[in-house]
């Protein structure tokens, strides 16, 4: 068991080292850093001095590990386009993305579970059929088209909600929030629905199929036979037992929400990290791209590691299997 955990952690570290190598190679080989930093009037002495100062005369592996060390401390260099430290820019942008992701996740889970339970209990009702059909449409529409469609309906035709930006934000010093002003809340509605819709349909379908499975089980029939109220049976007995897979799927989707925020943020010009990354690709702002690459990898590798280890901890069969195979 310990061997499995060690192997799993070692694998995660290896992945991060490879991603780091890609990020570092971009830094090192796309353009000449010296060119980017020194102006026209430079002497060979200046170049040599800066080369030594930046450690560019050192062997490749040494430079690589220095870069990793810097990245681990949150030092990703200076943005070519904005001329400010990348870490500062990301820290400014992170609250917008995290707030959007949190609200979308909350919407996806609460509405997803509610609709899933509803469509499972009233499985043949026409409302359920409508919901299922609409959800199929929601899965097959690309995210950016959903966003445009919502903008068209609610901003252009009905003129109810803003189509871009975060609205008014309150600066708490280390965090800016749009949750405290009415214009900030209004601005959140369309982007969070756009971002959460896919996960919502996913959770809804999952809860529905799990519920249908559970409702067939004997203990549900016994609960009914005991004369328990329908509501007690559905929520206390059935729903509780469907939640384990829902929690794991939701955990894994957490990373997907942050990744898909790139698309939503571009559609709604939401000033978050995703929009920053897209602009960085457009203008080939290497330090920002490298930083985003590293951050998102750390996040994904971390989430997957945690989910894997949780599985391992929850399910004893997995432990026995692994032990037998090796």
């Amino acid at each position: 068991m310990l061997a499995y955990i060690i192997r799993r952690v070692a694998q995660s570290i290896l992945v991060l080292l490879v991603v780091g190598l890609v990020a570092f190679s971009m830094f090192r080989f796309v353009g000449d850093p010296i060119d980017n930093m020194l102006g026209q009037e430079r002497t060979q002495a200046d170049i040599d001095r800066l080369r030594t100062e930046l450690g560019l005369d050192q062997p490749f592996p040494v430079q690589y590990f220095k870069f990793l060390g810097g990245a681990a401390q949150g030092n990703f260099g200076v943005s070519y386009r904005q001329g400010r430290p990348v870490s500062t820019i990301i820290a400014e942008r992170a609250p917008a993305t995290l707030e959007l992701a949190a609200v979308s996740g909350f919407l996806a889970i609460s509405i997803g579970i509610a609709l899933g339970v509803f469509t499972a209990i009233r499985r043949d009702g026409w409302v359920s059929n409508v919901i299922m059909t609409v959800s199929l449409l929601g899965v097959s529409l690309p995210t950016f088209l959903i966003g445009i469609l919502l903008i068209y309906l609610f901003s252009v035709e009905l003129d109810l909600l803003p189509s871009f930006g975060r609205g008014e934000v309150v600066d708490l010093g280390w965090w800016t929030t749009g949750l405290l002003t009415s214009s900030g809340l209004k601005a959140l509605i369309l982007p969070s629905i756009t971002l959460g819709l896919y996960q919502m349909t996913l959770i809804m379908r999952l809860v529905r199929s799990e519920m249908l499975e559970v409702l067939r089980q004997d203990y549900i029939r016994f609960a009914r036979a005991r004369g328990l109220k329908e509501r007690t049976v559905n929520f206390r007995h059935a729903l509780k037992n469907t939640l384990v897979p829902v929690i794991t799927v939701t955990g894994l989707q957490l990373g997907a929400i942050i990744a898909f925020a790139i698309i939503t943020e571009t559609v709604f010009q939401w000033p978050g990290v995703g929009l920053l990354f897209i602009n960085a690709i457009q203008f080939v702002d290497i330090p920002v791209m490298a930083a985003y690459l590293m951050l998102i990898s750390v996040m994904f590798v971390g989430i997957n590691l945690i989910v894997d280890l949780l599985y391992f901890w929850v399910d004893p069969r997995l432990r026995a299997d692994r032990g037998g195979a090796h």
Partner: protein
Amino acid sequence: MANLDTSTDTSPSAKPKEPGAIARFRDSDFYWKFTRSPVAMVSFTVTLILVLSAVFAPLIAPYDPFDPGSLNLMNGFSAPGVPNAFTGDEFFLGTDDQGRDVFSTILYGMRISLFVGFAAVMFALILGVTLGLIAGYIGGWTETIIMRIADIQLTFPSILVAMLIFGVAKGFTPVEYRDQMAIWVLIVAIGLSDWVQFARVVRGATLVERNKEYVQAAKLIGRRSPAIMLRHILPNVLSPVLVIATISLALAIIAEATLSFLGVGAPPTQPSLGTLIRIGQGFLFSGEWWILLFPAATLLTLALAVNLLGDWLRDALNPRLK
């Protein structure tokens, strides 16, 4: 006895006529299922029409949207089917701000979308099938490494992988080639984000096939490993590959549109459907709805038709689901 005689008779006059390829196809189980599925027939027809009109875009399109000589700025913002107020020209689906015929730009845009989609899927298919065959047939360390990489890549959403690869590749392309190379970079990025499905399925099928008698027989007569993989195993694992390729095509078209919409895909000189939607979004508030609606509807129709076709293929080719 009489029966035996006719079947062994080798004289040319008495030989029963071999059915041709088309006749055999018409007689097949596959064709029978196809003619009994309205969804399959409709989605196949729609896909075929769209693909053909993309291929023959230069013949069908009434204007060449990329020939500056044929453009008249006065024609800008013509509504669909209404004669332009200044020039009196009429455009079936209207024009955009520069007076380009929307119908023509859609045809040319679909050409690029489909080209990128097909090329990316081919790239993913070749890479994935090769690695899957090698992993399944050779096994050992090679298999572990290939499948580990596949597992790791699978934990990242493929659109994110494509975006990251596109960004990295763009960084490494010299500035003067960036626009020119963008389409190829896009193909490689989408292809690399999508090979895992192929590799996993082919590896699984190869693991089953490699222990069958015909493979052992081929080994015994001394055929080399590459020949066994390509000539003997490959044909037997192709039907799931076809299914994945069709579904991947729909996904690749959407991925390309998404990237181009975000402005990190097809360059402005070669607008795909995604680029057209990006341009059209700018006119959402000023009321020129046709610049956005028609490319978006085309993209949806195309993706939906290919997707439904893929779903049907999966059901038709998978005997386990019967």
